[in-house]
C-alpha cells in the first residue's frame, strides 16, 4: 500500500481518520494508530511485521538497558551493541550481495528498513545522551517506529522530537485541515509532476543528442525532487492529521546557493541524522574534520543503495563541500546569481551518478552533454517529447521555486477569508486532477521506496 494508491486515499486513510476522532485519550489513540500502522505495514507481506516486531522489541529492551547502566563505559558498550544489531540487519538485507558478490541471493528488503533502523538508532542514542528517557510503554515506542505516516520513506524523525507528542497530543480541526492540504499538495507533486517527468525520462533514455541528454537529466532531476518531496509532504500531512508536527523535509533545494546550502534543503531529516548521529560523534569539525566528512558522505552514498555509483555520488558531494569550506565559500556569498548557477550545475551532474547503473554509463551520459563526437544537437524524438510535455516541464521548473508559497501568502494577506476559500477550492481541484492522473496513468512507484 502506497500513499498514491486509490484504496489508501479513499478507504484506509479516511477510515483511520474517522475512527481516531472517537478515541477518548492519547493512549487509546496510540493503540488504534499502532494497529492501523501494523495493518498498513503488513499489507504487502505480513511476514515483515514479525521482523519489525523483533526489531522494535530489541530496541525497546536495549533502550531500557542503557538507562539502567550508571557506568559510562558500560552504557557505551550497550549502545554500541544496540547500534550494531540495527546496522547488522540493514547490512544483511541491503548489502550482502554487494559486499560478497553473491548475485544469487534473493533478498526482498522489508519496506522502510533503512528508515526505521535509523529511527531506532536515534532512540538509543538519545537515551545514551540523556536527551530522552526510555519509552515506558512498548506500545508507544512501537507506534514511534511503525507509524504508517513515516515508516515507508521517512522522514527520519528523531525520538526526542516526537517523544512529547507520543505521550500527549490532541487532534484538532486546524491540524486536520492543514494536514489534508499538505497531503493533497504532496499527492499532486507525485502523481502529476513526478510521474510525468518519469515518463519523459524513460522516453529519452536511449536518446544521444546533446539537447536530448540535457532534457533527460533535467527530467530526472525534477522527477526525484517532486517524487520525494511529494511523498514527504504527504507523510508530514498525515502526521499532522494525527497530531504530530514534524519539520519539513525539503526547502526548495534547487534554489540553493552552494552545495552546503543544498544539503540544508534536501532530505533534511537524513542530513540532520548524519550530522547529529555520525558527524558530531566522530568529532565534527573539531577533530579530523576532512576524514569525518569523507566518512559521513561515504555512508550517505552507501545508505542510498548497494552500488558503487551511490558511493561515488556521496563522495562527489564531499569533494564540493570540502572545496567550498576551503576556498569557494567567499566567492559564492559575493556572487549570488553565479552561486545559484554553480550549485544547479553541480547538482545536475550529481544526479547522473545517482541514476546510472554503473560509473561507465555515468561518464558516457556526462560526455553526451557536450558537443563531442558525431552527434546531433537535437533530433525529432527530443522535439516530440519536449513538445508534448512542455507545459509540465515548465510547471515543474516553476514549482521548484517558492512561487506557490508566495502566491498563497499574498492571497491570504490581501484577501483573508476569501483567499482561504480560493485556496480550498483550488486544492480540491488539484486533488480531483491528481485522482484523474492516478486512474489514467500507469503505476510509477516512489523512487525513495527503493532505499
Amino acid at each position: 500500500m502506497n500513499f498514491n494508491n486509490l484504496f489508501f486515499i479513499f478507504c484506509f486513510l479516511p477510515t483511520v481518520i474517522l475512527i481516531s476522532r472517537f478515541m477518548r485519550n492519547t493512549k487509546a489513540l496510540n493503540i488504534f494508530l499502532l494497529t492501523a500502522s501494523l495493518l498498513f505495514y503488513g499489507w504487502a507481506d505480513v511476514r515483515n511485521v514479525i521482523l519489525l516486531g523483533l526489531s522494535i522489541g530489541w530496541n525497546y529492551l536495549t533502550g531500557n538497558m542503557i538507562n539502567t547502566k550508571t557506568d559510562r563505559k558500560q552504557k557505551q558498550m550497550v549502545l554500541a551493541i544496540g547500534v550494531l544489531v540495527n546496522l547488522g540487519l540493514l547490512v544483511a538485507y541491503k548489502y550482502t550481495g554487494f559486499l560478497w558478490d553473491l548475485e544469487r541471493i534473493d533478498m526482498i528488503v522489508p519496506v522502510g528498513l533503512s528508515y526505521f533502523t535509523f529511527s531506532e538508532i536515534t532512540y538509543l542514542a538519545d537515551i545514551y545522551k540523556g536527551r530522552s528517557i526510555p519509552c515506558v510503554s512498548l506500545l508507544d515506542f512501537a507506534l514511534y517506529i511503525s507509524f504508517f505516516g513515516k515508516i515507508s520513506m521517512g522522514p527520519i524523525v528523531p525520538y526526542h522530537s516526537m517523544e512529547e507528542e507520543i505521550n500527549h497530543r490532541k487532534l484538532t480541526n486546524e491540524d486536520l485541515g492543514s494536514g489534508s492540504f499538505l497531503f493533497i499538495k504532496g499527492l499532486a507533486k507525485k502523481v502529476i509532476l513526478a510521474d510525468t517527468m518519469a515518463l519523459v525520462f524513460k522516453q529519452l533514455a536511449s536518446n544521444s543528442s546533446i539537447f536530448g541528454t540535457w532534457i533527460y537529466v533535467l527530467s530526472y532531476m525534477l522527477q526525484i525532487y517532486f517524487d520525494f518531496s511529494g511523498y514527504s509532504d504527504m507523510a508530514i500531512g498525515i502526521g499532522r492529521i494525527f497530531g504530530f508536527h514534524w519539520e519539513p523535509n525539503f526547502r526548495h533545494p534547487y534554489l540553493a546557493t552552494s552545495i552546503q546550502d543544498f544539503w540544508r534543503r534536501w532530505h533534511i531529516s537524513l542530513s540532520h541524522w548524519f550530522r547529529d548521529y555520525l558527524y558530531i560523534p566522530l568529532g565534527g569539525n573539531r577533530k579530523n574534520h576532512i576524514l569525518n566528512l569523507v566518512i559521513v558522505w561515504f555512508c550517505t552514498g552507501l545508505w542510498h543503495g548497494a552500488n558503487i555509483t551511490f558511493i561515488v555520488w556521496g563522495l562527489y558531494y564531499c569533494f564540493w563541500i570540502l572545496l567550498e569550506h576551503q576556498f569557494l565559500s567567499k566567492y559564492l556569498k559575493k556572487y549570488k546569481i553565479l552561486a545559484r548557477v554553480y550549485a544547479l550545475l553541480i547538482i545536475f551532474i550529481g544526479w547522473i551518478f545517482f541514476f546510472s547503473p554503473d560509473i561507465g554509463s555515468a561518464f558516457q551520459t556526462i560526455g553526451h552533454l557536450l558537443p563531442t563526437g558525431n552527434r546531433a544537437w537535437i533530433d525529432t524524438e527530443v522535439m516530440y517529447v519536449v513538445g508534448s510535455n512542455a507545459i509540465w516541464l515548465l510547471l515543474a521548473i516553476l514549482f521548484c521555486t517558492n512561487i506557490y508559497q508566495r502566491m498563497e501568502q499574498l492571497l491570504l494577506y490581501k484577501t483573508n477569508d476569501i483567499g482561504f476559500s480560493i485556496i480550498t477550492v483550488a486544492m480540491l481541484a488539484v486533488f480531483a486532477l491528481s485522482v484523474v492522473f492516478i486512474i489514467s496513468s500507469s503505476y510509477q512507484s516512489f523512487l525513495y521506496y527503493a532505499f
Partner: protein
Amino acid sequence: MKKNMLILLQAAMVIGMILFVHMRMDIPEEKKIAEEKMVDYITSKVDTEAMERRDSQAMKRFLSLDPSSYEYCIYWKAKDTMTADEIVIVRFKGPEQASDFAKKMETRIQDQLDVFDKYAPKQADLLRQATVETYTNYGVYIVSSEADKLQESFEKKIGIE
C-alpha cells in the same frame, strides 16, 4: 525489569532476527547431478554425428578453462570447423567461480566472432545469440540454433523452473 530477564529477552530478539533473515534468504540450490548423468543428458540432446566431446586439452586451448578447478567440465564442439556450435557445462566448486566462467565464455564468443564474422555470417549470427548463464552450482555456454530450448531443458534438469 530484572537484569537477567532483560538479557534473555534481548538474546531472544537477536536470535529471532537472525533466524528470520536466514529463512528469508533465498539461495536457489540446483540439483547436483553427477558427471556421468550429465554426459548422458547432453548426449541425448546433441547430434552426436555432428558434434564430439572434447578433452581437457581442448578446454584449455579453446576456452581457457582449467577443468581441474571445477567439479567437472563437459565440452562438446562441432566436428566441422566451419560450424560454431559448442556446448559447455561446468559444475562449480564454489559460487565465486561463476563470474570468471562467464567472462571466459564471453571472451570465447568474441574470439569466435572475430573469425566467423568475415566469412560465415550465419555462424556469426548464431554466436551473437549464444547463451552464457551461471547458476549457484553450474555454468552453461551454448552456441546452437536451439540454444534457448537447450538452456530451458537444462534448467529443468537441474531443478530450476
